[in-house]
């Protein structure tokens, strides 16, 4: 297994206000697998994604990437781990306002020893004609596409997507999902996508349902359909 999550527990607060967000999560993903984490608000899916991404820590349990445990990593090693292996896409695009589309993507490329070709990515993302624009000149969908470009340009082993379509309309959301699908198929990255949109599960290789801090369902999607055909 490429990504293994074993017995992850996480709680917030202390005493009477202590809330257990993750109550012992186990899961495993193959390299190149497209996994969707589904669940209602507060089910712990974003927390789990953040722990996998090394920007939050677990109280108990261990995560292995390519067989290597993350738990013993210090702050600097974690940063290097994110730098070398991870790409992040958030609901908020968080683009740098005074850099152009191309430069925002370069921000990601800078971190990689073998970045992908930026022009190709711009083409793939349909941003070639907007390459010289600033984020304020773009629509929400275009901004999210730029954020995807920034995440994938360094060709990460794992692409973590936290509600990437949460702020977008139906049509734009589908465009973004198609792009993530293309990226997954073209570059073979492992994708973990958090969403509360039940329909999105249909495009995944694996669907994991979380509720109340626990994995309620973890199964391979045998009826996978292209993002293009998703309806909600």
């Amino acid at each position, binding site marked *: 297994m490429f990504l293994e999550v074993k017995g992850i527990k996480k709680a917030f607060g202390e005493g009477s206000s202590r809330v257990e967000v993750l109550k012992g999560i186990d899961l495993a993903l193959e390299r190149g697998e497209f996994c969707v984490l589904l669940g209602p608000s507060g089910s712990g899916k974003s927390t789990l994604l953040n722990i996998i991404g090394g920007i*939050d820590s677990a109280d108990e349990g261990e995560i292995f990437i390519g067989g290597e445990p993350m738990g013993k990593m210090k702050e600097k090693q974690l940063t290097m*781990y*994110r730098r070398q292996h991870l790409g992040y896409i958030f609901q908020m695009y968080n683009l740098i306002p005074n*850099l152009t589309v191309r430069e925002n993507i370069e921000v990601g490329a800078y971190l990689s020893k073998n*970045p992908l070709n930026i022009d190709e990515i711009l083409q793939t993302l349909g941003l070639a004609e907007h390459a010289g624009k600033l984020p304020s000149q773009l629509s929400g969908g275009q901004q999210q596409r730029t954020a995807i470009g920034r995440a994938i340009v360094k060709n990460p082993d794992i692409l973590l997507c936290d509600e990437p379509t949460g702020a977008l309309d139906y049509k734009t959301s589908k465009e973004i999902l198609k792009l993530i699908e293309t990226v997954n198929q073209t570059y073979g990255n492992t994708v973990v996508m958090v969403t509360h949109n039940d329909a999105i599960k249909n495009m995944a290789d694996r669907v994991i349902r979380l509720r109340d801090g626990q994995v309620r369902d973890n199964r391979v999607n045998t009826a996978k359909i292209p993002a293009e055909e998703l309806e909600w």
Partner: protein
Amino acid sequence: MKNPLRKRLLRELRSDFGKYAVIFLLLVLSISEISGFLVAAESMIAAYDESFEKYNIEDGNFTAEEKMSPRRIRAAEELDISVYELFYSDQTAAGGQTIRIFKMREDINLACLMDGRIPEAENEIALDRMFADNNGLRSGDPIEIGGKRWLISGLVALSDYSTMFENNNDMMFDSKMFGVSVVTPEAFSQIPEEDLVWRYAWKYDAFPATTAEEIDVSDALAYDLNRIVPLTGFVPRYANQAIMFTGDDIGSDRAGMTMFLYIIIVIIAFVFTVTTSNTIVKEAGVIGTLRSMGYTKKELICHFMTLPVIVSLAAALAGNVLGYTVLKKVNADLYYGSYSLPTYVTLWNASAFIETTVVPLALMLIINFLLLSVRLRYSPLQFLRRDLTRKKKSRAVRLPRFLPFFSRFRLRIFFQNISNYVLLFVGILFANTLLMFGLMFPDVLQNYQESVPDDMLAEHQYVLQLPAGAVDEDNKVSSLLEMLYFESEVDTENEDAEKFSAYTLKTLKTQWIKDDEVLLYGIVPDSRYLNLSLKEGDVYISGSFAEKEMLSPGDSFTMKEVYEDDTYDFTVTGIYPYHGALCIFMRQDDLNGMFDLGEDTFSGYFSETPITDIDRKYIGQEIDYSSLTKVSRQLTISMGGMMKVVDAFAVIMFVIMIYLMSKIIIEKNAQSISMTKILGYSDSEISRLYILVTSIYVIAVMVLSIPPVSAVIQWLFAVIIRMEMSGWIPFRISNAVYRTMILMGSVSYLLIAALEYRKVRGVPMGDALKNTE
């Protein structure tokens, strides 16, 4: 691949040009001024140090009561010294100034020609360059001195008069009312002998190795010389203020100016970090994303530090160029206004470069690095969640309901921006301190000058000068005869005159208070000039002495003989409200008894009218309005220009701080301002909310800072006077200073408020609806 984040820098600079421009300007102003000052000071000091050898400056001088015969000179030279004639005559110019005329020097204390040429004809005179400048005289101008018309052939700097001390024991030099000059030997020979002072300079055959040795050797020399010829004055070089003061003073200015620069740099570094902190809060999401992607904290610190460092570096370079070119001359001219220095050559000054460039940049780097390390210490997740505080979210401050809605709104804005307001407070306090320092200085001097006439003990005081032969311990008979003759010569018919005894002692030097020579007056019973009924053993001290030495009635203090180690203890009976000089009042018989002066001995006169029937040669010192205001007059000349620079600087500092802070506050609230616009608030209502808070705050801080700033300035002033100067100037400032401060502050603020109003109007309504960074 180069870090693409660097592409932001130029755009950041362009988009926030106003902020960077004012910071750049402030840095350039400070660095160029200090760099110019340091280069000028170092070059001046080098020229001054070099002048000792180049112009063959004396190792000391003595004044003989009569012209020395060749035999006496030979006898003196047997004391391992070479003796040179340095006769002079003090004459009064048409404008009332005293001009000391020397014969053109050829072997010692040589003159440096600064303009024109040396005198060649009998009616030609070369005046001291600084005296000429301060009195508006130039080469080629005629001048009347001692009733004779002279033509100024040129301007010179005499190497033994870099500072214009008329007498070595003067409290302060006077470069406007006292000057030196040289004339041809022929012209000098026409001055009647009775008008000449028989001064001689000496050079040691072997200069003593250390200052301590120099003191011992010169003490012995004074004793030996006095046995060869009666002396009326003896000043070894180390004690000669006219030669040594310049070096000491330039050195002490240096420390003050450098400290001033560092304070400004620290404030600017804080301004940078506050503005950067604001950017960090604004861009928290982006920073969180970058950190999630794998950007290290160090990379981000470097990124946010780059612009402040580039701006500082550019400012340091521009400042140094300006300093070396324009401001070096301005500062050199300030020195040339106080000191008569020879021409100087600009020296490349490594320490000035380090102090004005390397140290400020290092300070900027360190402060920015530390504060950014703190601001960027949060985890990527905290940045993504905009959770940038270690503290638990505090609850909203409870505000009383009876307050109108607008007032509560304004208070909320104030609490939300408290950190900016704290920095603004520091900035205003610093700017106000500078402003007050600049405004207070001329005012204090002016007040002092104006208070002197009401405060004088008498219109004229004459301190008599006892001939050296009158105190010859080895020849008591001749000494007695000399004394009798002296007493008959110093009697006056003037009915206003009242005798007093006098004796000079020195205060003990401490770490914080410079030693001073203090005149002890022995007052006759029922004095017409002092409103004091002194009882036996009473010791009253002048108000200025009490203030300088921090003495109160009942306190004890110790003083010592000027040239010996004998000490005397006193206990203060009371303080006499006189601020003209540091002095002590006691009964005449007490004073005569204390110093074994003889029962009927007296040392001088108080008089309302000038005493004209005593030969001038018996008058050692005349204390009148002119001599009492010498210090304030000189300080006005030498510091006046500098104070205007300080004022200008303070106003700029004030404007910049308010501009930057109010800009940050408005930018921080752009979204709320935009939202209030959408809700239907008018621009003026929004301005009342967002600008009025700052206005009220600025005015409140300006007014409330006056008492603490005034206390700090008063303390600083007292410390400077105690440590650096002889005598005392009481700190009295008029209300006009406070009014001017508030007026200058308010006018500056109005300007900024207008800019702020434009900024508020410029906030687009769309800002509230944006969900992007």
